């Protein structure tokens, strides 16, 4: 065990956490390493909570989270750095005619009050609600912004543990509706406008698209290594923020 902590001081930065944040940080790490050949950066995509937990326990130096810290977590003496904003897009199957929902409709759908597409202007088919698992940063952010609590989530909701899975489900099921981070949205699914606001980075930045949350990096107060700090600095730099943007997220600058 002691060996590995030595090496982390030597030139290795361990980062772990959110699967939404992970991919963009990975790219940052790649770019960072091009400039700093002697530093290696390990990016673990294990989930926001696990990342935070790892940071508290010292398994990782830096944690990634796609949600705000919980009080308990804050108490553990973590320092957070916001590195990006992420919009959460509501997605439906390509064949679905519904292109826009109000935020209340979204809420009602997720709470199980609206169960048929016909109620929101679509075909007469049931709505298959897809959600992330409890504990997911994306889910936390989504619920908070849409305005319902975990226990209110319709019980029949499909739970999936990754944006990719949600996308696959929605792509394969014309009744399905799910939500994923902007970074994962592509042509295989429709992304809905909320209250007639298109899910774009500009709209998020402008505060018009409300379903969004911050990407943060955390580290234990006072233990951040030089390399770790320079990595975070790199992400916050213009070059880093460009990468953030290129992946469909919103730069904090």
């Amino acid at each position, binding site marked *: *065990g*002691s*060996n*590995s*902590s030595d*090496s982390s001081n030597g030139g290795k930065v*361990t980062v*772990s956490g959110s*699967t939404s944040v*992970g*991919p963009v940080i*990975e*790219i940052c*790490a*790649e770019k960072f390493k091009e400039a700093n050949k002697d530093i*290696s950066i*390990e*990016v*673990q*995509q*294990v989930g926001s909570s696990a990342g935070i937990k790892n940071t508290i*326990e010292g*398994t*990782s130096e830096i944690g990634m989270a796609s949600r705000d810290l919980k009080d308990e977590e804050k108490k553990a003496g973590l320092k957070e750095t916001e590195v990006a904003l992420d919009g959460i897009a509501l997605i439906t199957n390509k064949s679905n005619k519904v292109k826009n929902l109000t935020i209340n409709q979204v809420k009602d759908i997720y709470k199980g009050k609206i169960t048929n597409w016909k109620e929101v202007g679509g075909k007469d088919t049931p709505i298959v609600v897809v959600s992330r698992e409890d504990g997911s940063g994306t889910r936390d952010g989504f619920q908070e912004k849409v305005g319902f609590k975990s226990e209110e989530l319709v019980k029949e909701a499909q739970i999936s*543990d*990754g*944006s*990719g*899975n*949600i*996308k*696959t489900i929605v*792509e394969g099921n014309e009744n399905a509706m799910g939500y994923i981070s902007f970074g*994962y949205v592509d042509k*295989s699914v429709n992304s809905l406008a909320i209250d007639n606001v298109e899910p774009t980075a500009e709209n998020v930045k402008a505060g018009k698209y409300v379903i969004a949350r911050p990407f943060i990096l955390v580290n234990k107060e006072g233990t951040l290594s030089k390399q770790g700090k320079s990595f975070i600095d790199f992400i916050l730099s213009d070059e880093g923020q460009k990468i953030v943007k290129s992946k469909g997220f919103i730069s904090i600058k």
Partner: protein
Amino acid sequence: MRKLKENILKLLVYLSVLFTISTLVLIVGYIFIKGIKGINLSFLFSDYSASGDGGILPMIITTLYTVALSILIATPIGVLSAIYLQEYAKKGKIVTCIRFATESLAGIPSIIYGLFGGIFFVVTLGMKYSILSGSLTVAIIILPVIIRTTEEALKTVPQAYREASLALGSTKFQTLYKVTLPSAIPGILSGIILSVGRVIGESAAILLTAGTVAQMPGGIFDSARTLTVHAYLLTKENGDIQGAASIGIVLIVIVLLLNTMARLVAKKLNKANC
């Protein structure tokens, strides 16, 4: 009447066979059709890149590391334990206990190993997410497989060989390494090959212990991503079914190679023995 019954039974058998064959063809076929497009040299042999169009070389390397390490750890322990159980231990509470332990280990779902490894090796022993933690965890997973197959192999060594050797004034240990073990080698080897397959196919336990870092591992203390975990993450995070299928092809080919190898080895050793 008798004929009718017989025909019905026959029909059932053939339906079952049809089911088995068709699922096999379907799965393998599906994976090949989905994934074959993604297979090319640069996919197989170039470094991974988070930004896209990288290959899976780091995952292949990690897989090799994990296999090698876990086999290196589990084989001696497994084989020696099996020897103890089969050759030395007197029947009694202790053996029953050990045997029960190994059998129970064999039955535990790998997710539980993951939970355990994730706390014990990663946190408690401070190994962090690393190939080592992962390998130790899978080593425990395959331990019962190796013990079991070795025991079976030892069991099939005729008692007569041992008696003959002992009656010639050999010690138990001499008997073991001169007669018993050589005869059991084919069985032990096929057990090891079986374990290799198990290690390669493992995902849940590795995910929770070796982590998911998509990089060329620098050593066994680095966290890294095996092929199977990669396939899992591609599905889960990117919805990249095609990529997963491509890795699937690689995995299936490896499994095929291993199986053929096991057969050949067993055949060869059997021949050498007889």
